[in-house]
């Protein structure tokens, strides 16, 4: 029982990272029916930029926690900028055409370019990200959790909540929701849908960058972390449903916990299997996701 509790808790923090990445996919899909397949690289860039900023601040004698707090807005801005760039280069031209291939390939290509740039700037070695909180685990009964893992869950939920509030309360948020419901109608009432789509890409990469600095103190950071996380985030997005906010949280938790349980009970070599198996099952039986709504295309 203790073991299961420990595995579930480990799975939750990993799962929340997948949820945040999936959330990013969802944001752009809602407004433009496109996805940024370089999402994993946005996460990687966020964590590496955060690493550079934090290590420089620590070298200037700031405390690890203060350095982290100062670094956060910088990383969020960099993430947003990267999102706007991706949308402008890769998606804008391709989104208008019938075929999805253009923006799929373009965002993948941009992701690869970004990874190569990162490898040249930061090298290919994994590096240790200084943790803003103590690394000694907190003990709850028989379960041991690192403070950073709790911070990951809080941070992820806070981000998704913030975006939700933004959507409901601010006028820009309402424009966002309007565009996602019906793009032509939104154009008709004077909303600049191009700007809304740009903004959704900015928010999407911002979320990924935020996820990057959340997870970096727990795992090691490096130019290669984006690939696996981007892929699993995508799987969570599909599993949970690209139109449902709660869906990605549920999907992320399911995947995270399934991974840690598989790793223990079956074999650590098979850890990546449950995510992919679930993806296949969901695509076969409920392609709009466990929590998504079936979309009816009127002819």
């Amino acid at each position, binding site marked *: 029982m203790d073991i299961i509790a420990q*595995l579930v808790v480990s799975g939750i923090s990993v799962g929340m990272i997948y949820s945040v990445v999936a959330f990013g996919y969802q944001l752009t899909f809602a407004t433009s029916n496109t996805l940024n397949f370089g999402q994993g690289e946005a996460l990687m860039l966020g964590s590496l930029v955060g690493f550079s900023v934090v290590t420089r601040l620590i070298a200037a004698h700031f405390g690890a926690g203060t350095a982290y707090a100062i670094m956060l807005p910088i990383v969020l801005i960099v993430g947003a900028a990267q999102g706007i760039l991706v949308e402008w280069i890769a998606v804008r031209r391709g989104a208008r055409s019938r075929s999805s291939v253009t923006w799929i390939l373009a965002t993948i290509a941009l992701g690869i370019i970004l990874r190569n740039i990162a490898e040249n700037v930061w090298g290919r070695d994994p590096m*240790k990200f200084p943790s803003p909180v103590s690394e000694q685990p907190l003990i709850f009964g028989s379960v*041991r959790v690192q403070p950073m893992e709790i911070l990951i869950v809080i941070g992820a939920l806070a981000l998704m909540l913030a975006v939700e509030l933004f959507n409901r309360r601010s006028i820009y948020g309402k424009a966002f929701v309007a565009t996602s419901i019906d793009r032509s109608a939104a154009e008709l009432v004077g909303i600049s849908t191009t700007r809304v789509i740009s903004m959704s890409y900015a928010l999407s990469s911002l979320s990924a960058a935020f996820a990057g600095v959340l997870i970096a103190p727990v795992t090691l950071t490096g130019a290669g972390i984006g690939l696996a996380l981007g892929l699993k985030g995508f799987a969570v997005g599909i599993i949970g449903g690209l139109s449902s906010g709660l869906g990605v949280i549920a999907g992320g938790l399911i995947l995270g916990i399934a991974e840690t349980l598989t790793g223990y009970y079956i074999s*650590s070599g098979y850890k990546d299997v449950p995510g992919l198996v679930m993806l296949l099952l969901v695509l076969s039986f409920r392609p709009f996701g466990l929590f998504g709504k079936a979309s009816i295309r009127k002819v």
Partner: protein
Amino acid sequence: MINRRLFLSVLLATPIALDMAHAADPIKIGLSGPFTGGSAAMGISMRDGVRLAVNEINAAGGILGRSVQLVERDDEAKNEMGVQVAQELINKEEVVATLGFANTGVALAALRFYQEAEIPVIINVATGTAVTANAPSPSYIFRTSASDSLQTQMIAKEVAEVRHFTKAAIFADSTNYGQLGKEDMLKALDKYGLKPVVVEKFNIGDTDMTAQILHAKEANAEVLITFGIGPELAQVANGMNKLNWKVPFIGSWSLSMGSFIDAAGANANGAIMPQTFIQESSTPKRKNFIEAYQKKYSVDRIPSPVSAAQGYDSVYLLAAAIEQAGETDGPDVRKALESLNKKVEGVVTDYDKPFSATDHEAIDASVPLMGKVENGRVVSATQ
């Protein structure tokens, strides 16, 4: 009279001078190692140790009066890159010998090209036993690092004889190095009648070791034996601290890698591993080597002291063989290596007939000792 003599001597000297100009072609030696990626600490330290030795040799006049030119290639710790590098060094660059290889898998993939081309290779970091053991005779593969069969015997002795443990857990990575090392470890433990209580695997790039550690904890393992490289081993140490599994951490020599010590921080203290070389100025030769390295590369702690020292020594062994053979032809250099008649003073040890026709391992059981991680550095464990 004088004019004619002068004229004749100039005439006679010219072809000799021309001949010497031709013979001043540099001797090309290949260097294959991982200079990027998780193994980079080993590759870079090895390369820097080799460069130090080559500079010293060139400053002293080179080998056979010719300067040494290093042809360096990054094999990225990937087997297929190692093959590509080997083919380029042999066919395009036409090296007379190659030094290097930090990764067992890369070595296993690339060595047959050297063997076919009859070009000697001195492996100075990779430790997989199969690398030299499986070579056909006459073998062109030599080694100055401590083989895994030797290391596993030392680890098994430490576990069974010195500390009297009966329940060991083995964590090995999924590369050739990890899995072959695990096999060697099983054999070594078997000699003491011991079987490990758990054997776990992890991949390069894995960061979460919770499942493996929980398995070992459940099985009441008394000691953890590891076969992997720095970043993943650091995650194991960090995971052990997080899950409160505090047992002695003994592993292969890769626990001395800077990437392990830095990423694990305080959790690395107490880790024990066999070492051929510890960064301590215990002899004048070692002191000079360490100081020269620190000065040239502006570091205090050598990222992988073992790799640097073994790399340095491999150059001197090769140089001695080429001098003895009198030329750079592969088969002759090989025969010279197998029967070195001069003692070579190295940083790891002094080499007195280190190789023979049947034994291509320079390091035997008398050389390595156990090192221990303490506060960011590796020190001797028997202090």
